């Protein structure tokens, strides 16, 4: 039965979102503590941007489960 897998997949997506929110949280934090003139500032900003973009995909994945 394909339906039986749905709750499990939903939980996996929640776990994924949870982990990504940790990446976003800590990279935001480090970015805010890094002066703009620091050469790593741009790299950190890329990490934040990509993690947010990954999180933004999750609602679409959840919709596909329905």
């Amino acid at each position: 039965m394909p339906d039986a897998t749905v709750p499990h997949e939903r939980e996996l997506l929640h776990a994924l979102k949870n982990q990504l929110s940790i990446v976003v949280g800590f990279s935001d934090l480090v970015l805010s503590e890094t002066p703009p003139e620091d050469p790593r500032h741009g790299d950190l900003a890329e990490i934040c941007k990509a993690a947010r973009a990954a999180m933004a995909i999750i609602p679409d994945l959840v919709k596909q489960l329905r």
Partner: protein
Amino acid sequence: MTDTRNGLAPGHATARILVVDDLDANRALIARLLAPDGYLVSGAVDGAQALKMVADQQPDLVLLDVMMPGADGFAVCRTLKHDPATRLIPVVLITSLSESRSRIEGLEAGADDYVSKPVDAQELRARVRSLLRIKRYTDDLDSAESVIVSLALTIEARDAYTDGHCQRLARYGVALGRAIGCQQEDLDALQRGGFLHDIGKVGIPDAVLLKGGRLTADEYDVIKQHTVIGDRLCGSLRSLKRVRPIIRYHHERLDGTGYPDGLSGNEIPLLPQIIGIVDVFDALTTERPYKRALSLEEAARELTAEAARGWRNRELVDIFVGLMCESGAQTAGG
């Protein structure tokens, strides 16, 4: 410049915050985000540990992850908000769920606020600050009320013959209120009213209050003033709004011969009528300097006679006497 750490005025204790999340990294992240405000932050890994830590540490605020193995955040929130000892602790749910259904479930569980993942540092800090401010007001109200209750017990302690009177009145009053289907807020008022009904006796001189012999008419007039004094004493406390009528009117009688205002019939609110009945019952069934303790049957007869005389509501008296007979039979039975 004043110290604005925690957004508190100087002299306030550092607020304690409990962060509940099964992921170490999430707890560490929240602690880092709150670090600039200098709170004491502790962590729990699941619902069971959270409930134990809340009981042990009495935090000022709980940040609660919704998705946890075992009891989820909604269940923990419901438990905290159901227990009178913890229901005033603000709870903020942290969730990666964005559906409005979950928000509704969170509000129904009694959560005070909601934060979505990824948590925005400024938003989190602002919400925590604002809830801690409210928590401090409720703490202050709470302590104002405990001062009043302590005062009531001190007054009771002046007179050895009334020992335990307040506790019994609260118990009897709530039992009668429950039997006639009173709402919870009325039951709360009866509980407090049991303790506070004679608070105004603080303003009555010992020479009159503790006089062993018969009171003169003037002395009796002084005693009567305890209802008005008590009402005035609690006047500024909003949390005692429903209790004040009990304090002022518990010596009124349905036929208008009571005091202090000589109200009659329906002019006397229900809650003071209840405390009036249980107050008389307790006075009758305990020993006083001028009389022995009456038996349950004798006290029931006296209360019924007062109802027949038009002083008390017959129906309330009958229900209360029934309750007392029931619990008396239970006690006698084992």
